Structures are given as C-alpha cells and as structure tokens.
C-alpha cells in the first residue's frame, strides 16, 4: 500500500521524476565508467611493473628482505614449486638470483645489479625478449651470455658482442668473478633498471657466485590481484614459515602503492563532486515534492495518518526515483564496460610511445569487477536515504492546520 502510493506519487510530475532519475542515471553511469577505467589502468600498470620486478607476491628466505645478501638465499626446491602451484590463483613462478657486482669494460667500471633469470619464464610474464633493441635475447638458463640494460651499456660505452668482466662477492664469502659476452641490449621503461641491470642466465649466475641451485626470490604471478593479503596468508601457510617469507608488492614497493593511493584520492574527489551534484538535484525534487503537497500531507495527518508513516512514503519515493536511475545506470554501465573489456582501447601515436617508454602496455583495459557496480549503487541508495531524512523531518514537524491552510 505504502509502496503503491509512493510509486503513484512519483509519477505525478512525470517530467521532474524523469529528469531526476536521469541525473542519477548519468551519475551512476559516469561513476562506473570512471571507476572501471581508473581501476583498469592501475591494474594494468601494477601488472606491468610487478612482472618486471617483484611479482604480485614474492617468496624469500626468511630475513632476506631486511638483509639482501647472497648468504640469505635459499635452495631451489621442486617441492616448493609444487606446493605454490597448488593454489589456483597462482599462474607463474619466476625464480631469480639477485646480486650486486662490479662490471668492467675497457677502462670503465660500474656497480651493477645482476639478475639471474630463467629467460623462458621471464619471457612469458613480461615479454622481456620484445624489449631487445640490439642483438638477441638469451635462450636458456645455461647460455654463456648476458643481456644489458641499454642505459648501462651506453655508460660503459660497450656494444653487442663485447665482453664484460664481473667481480663481486659469492656465496659464503667466496669471491665471484666471470667474463661474459653481451648478447643483447634491452630498453626498459624503469630508468633505474635500464641504467643498472644485467640479465644473466640463472645457472651461469649461480655458478659464478658459487651458489649452485640457490635463489634469492621466487616471484609469484597471480590471475587476480585483489585480496592480495589473503593470498599471501594462504601461500605462507602452505610453505614452511620458518624458512620462507612471503611479501606482497605493496610491502616491497610502498612508493608505488602510495602513488596509486594518492592518485585515487583525486578520483574519489571527482566522483564525490559528481554525487554532490546529483544530491542537489534529488534534494530539490524532494523539497518540491513536499512543498507542493503540504496541503495534502496536512489532510492525511488530520484524517489520522501517523507522521512516521507519511515520512516512510516520502522516503520510499526518494528511494524509488534513485533506484530507477541506478538500475538503468548499472545496466548501461555493465554494457559499456563489457564492450570495452572485449574491445580494449589501443592507444596510438605519441601516447602509445610514452606508455611504451615506461614499459607499460599501450592498451587501456577496463576493470569489470562486480564490486564497482555494487558499491556505486549502494552509494546512490545511501545518499537518497540520507536526503530523504530532510522531508521526513519536515513532516514530523508539520502542523496539520497550517499545512491544510497553505
């Protein structure tokens, strides 16, 4: 009965209801597209960055993160891989041995970061082979050659096929030394990496450091990126917590996490403004509704309708209008996002180059997480309920005689 009355009432002024519902519709639609777009961009950015560096999660020997020395490495263990792969969200495991050494070519010497990698596994998750700008990519873990960051190569003034000498510290205070041919140069988006990195086949690196079969980390790639903490916990549980530590990319790269947080704050403000505007529209409609109907509301109270009941009707009216807008907005939002998920935007021209310079795929993906849709609807609903408190409050204060005479 109340619902019916509320429903009939909102159609008393069709035009106004449609305008109000339409403004809710656009707000919901824009908010969804906006959220989906920014989330998609962040996800893509994170994916690109972590696939070069840490992985979404990373496994170390316990204590490695605090003291990143070769002595804090652990033995590569097939059983550990098996255990980690049991988790259905884990897609790839990338073993690495990370060390620092001095690299010399001719009269130039420089401190470098040596990443001992499995070239095939690396290729799958971060397309490292496509970043080669000169020479060739390394083929397997045993190959006797290295790939250098293009920035490092130019600092050392060396070219493909030149030989580079490394000198560093090996496992258990042994010394590490080796001479390797430079097989290729990669251009990487991350400047730091581009200027310092040496990719060395894993077995070669282990051999040079006297650290046979030892790894400093296993990077874990995931098929979903939310609930990172939970996944971390469950991985940690599945492997020996006294031997290994599991860390998330947020723990390892707090700057990036903070950057995203800060950047999202700006987006929240934009969405906030959007909602502020529709709140005004909705509020105006509600005010008009009770202003125009004062006489009628007075009569209803006079003939014995409890004020609380009347306030409920006004609340329902507000909710109904915003629900209509929300509902259509969500459907449109789902369709738009769906369309862009199937047909992601491929950037072209200059923007494309900027993206690629930073090592990020030049494709804009939309995030189609249900959470976005649900949260946006809830926000609008909560808003309309909050707004409806004002007319409700007005009704509670209404004096029937004055209302009837107005």
């Amino acid at each position: 009965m109340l619902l019916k009355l509320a429903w009939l009432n909102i159609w008393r002024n069709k035009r106004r209801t449609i305008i109000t519902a339409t403004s809710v519709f656009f707000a919901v639609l824009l908010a969804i597209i906006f959220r989906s777009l920014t989330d998609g961009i962040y996800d893509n950015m994170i994916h690109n960055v972590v696939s070069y560096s840490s992985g979404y999660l990373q496994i170390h020997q316990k204590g490695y993160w605090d003291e990143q020395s070769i002595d804090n490495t652990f033995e590569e263990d097939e059983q550990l891989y098996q255990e980690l792969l049991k988790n259905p969200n884990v897609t790839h495991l990338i073993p690495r041995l990370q060390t620092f050494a001095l690299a010399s070519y001719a009269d130039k010497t420089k401190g470098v970061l040596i990443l001992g990698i499995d070239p095939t596994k690396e290729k799958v998750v971060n397309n490292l082979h496509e970043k080669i700008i000169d020479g060739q990519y390394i083929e397997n873990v045993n190959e006797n050659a290295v790939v250098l960051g293009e920035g490092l190569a130019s600092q050392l003034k060396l070219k493909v096929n030149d030989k580079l000498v490394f000198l560093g510290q090996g496992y258990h205070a042994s010394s590490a030394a080796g001479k390797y041919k430079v097989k290729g140069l990669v251009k990487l988006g991350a400047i730091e990496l581009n200027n310092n990195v040496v990719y060395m086949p894993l077995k070669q690196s282990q051999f040079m450091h006297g650290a046979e079969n030892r790894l400093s980390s296993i990077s874990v790639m995931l098929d979903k990126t939310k609930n990172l903490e939970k996944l971390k916990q469950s991985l940690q549980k599945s492997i020996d917590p006294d031997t290994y530590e599991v860390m998330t990319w947020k723990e390892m790269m707090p700057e990036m996490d903070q950057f995203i947080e800060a950047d999202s704050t700006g987006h929240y403000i934009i969405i906030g403004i959007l909602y502020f505007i529709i709140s005004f529209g909705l509020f105006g409609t509600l005010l008009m509704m009770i202003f125009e109907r004062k006489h009628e509301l007075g009569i209803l109270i006079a003939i014995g309708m409890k004020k609380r009941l009347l306030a409920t009707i006004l609340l329902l009216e507000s909710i109904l209008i915003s629900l209509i807008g929300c509902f259509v907005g969500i459907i449109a939002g789902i369709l738009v996002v769906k369309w862009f998920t199937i047909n992601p935007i491929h950037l072209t021209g200059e923007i494309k180059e900027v993206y690629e310079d930073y090592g990020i795929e030049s494709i804009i993906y939309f995030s189609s997480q249900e959470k976005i849709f649900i949260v946006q609807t809830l926000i609008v609903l909560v808003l309309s309920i909050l707004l409806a408190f004002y007319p409700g409050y007005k009704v509670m204060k209404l004096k029937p005689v004055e209302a009837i005479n107005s």
Partner: protein
Amino acid sequence: MAKTIIDAHNVSKTFNPKTVPVHAVQNVHLHIEEGEFIALVGPSGSGKSTLLNMMGGLDEPTAGTVFIDGVEITKLSENKLIDFRLHNIGFVFQSFNLIPVLTAKENVGFVLQLQHMSKKEREKRVLNLLKEVGLEDKINSKPGELSGGQQQRVAVARALASKPKIILADEPTANLDSKAAANLLDIMAKLNKEEKITFLFSTHDQRVIKKARRVITLVDGKIDSDVEQSPT
C-alpha cells in the same frame, strides 16, 4: 437523554500571544449531543475555523478543555491524538480533500486501511459508502475526473468510513455552486436522519444554514447566539 459527543469548557485560542495577540476564540462553552446537525456561522474572522480545529484535535486551545465522547483530547500526546482522530472524528475540508493519485474507492478505503481493516470488508464498506453519497458509478474515478461537488461527496464518504462520533466540516460547500451545495447538504442531512451521524459544519451560505437544526453564531470569537430551528 442522548449521549454527549462534544463537551468543551471555557475554550480560548490566542494566536501570537507574545507579539500581536489575536484572540480568535474566547471562553467558549460547547455541548453537542449524538445526532445533532449544527451549523456554525458568523462573519469572516469570527473564529469558526479555529473553533472547529480545536474541537477536532487539529489545533490546541491556549486555555480550556475539550472532551470527545468522554476522552479529554486536549491531554493526548500527538500520536495518540492522531490515532484518536482516525477512529473518532471525520473531517471534510473546504477543498482538495482527496489524495489526487488514488481513485474515489481508494480514497475512501484509505482510512480503513489505516485502521487495518481486511480487504474484503473494506471493499464492501467502501461500496456502500459511495452508494450513500450517490457515487456508485464513480468508484474508479480519480479526484481530477470528478466535479467539485462529487469530490466533496467522496470526502463525506471518507469521513464516514471510520464510523466516527462526529463529522466536522469547515465550509464544505464554499467552493460549490448552489445546486451542488444543496445536494451535498441533502446527503449530509439524510445521513444525519437515517444513521444518526452527528455533524458540525461551518458556513456562510444562508441556504445551507436553513438546513441545520441548530445554529451557533460566533462573533469576535465568542458565542453570540445558539438556537434550535426547524430545517427547511
């Protein structure tokens, strides 16, 4: 002796007591018994509406007490008073009495719904009521599709719906042409005669006054005369 419906003692109402006091009603005593048919008359501004509102528990007197059917309504809390009105008092206002989005049937049934009457009982009662006011062929019309007189008749039917002790009507014919006014009064008189419904209505209209059996005249917020007459 007939049952007392309204018993008002020494009722006064002063508007804006602190700024520019208006003594709209002053020291009125009023005694109304079941089955009476009373016109409340007087010049504009004499306090008719104010008095009616206080008798119906829509407005609070500044002084005095009002009993309706033995209940001192001037002492009830707001919610109790709303409930009391729902079950004991029928109202007909000057115009726009009805909920515009509901049909005649739904408007009359609304009060019964507030009383939680079952749907079946309600339907029956609403049909009877609309028949009594001569609108059995308009049950599904919305107020906008009815003439002013028809709307007022629906309002009377609605006022009757809860079987109230009394129906208070503030100038129910003010917006009607003389024919519709006479028709409405005839219906009210018939209900009064056949069903012993008590009516207290205010009016300016001489022809309406003539139909009353008791005429109370207010002047400057005071009862100037209170006479019985035979209706014509």
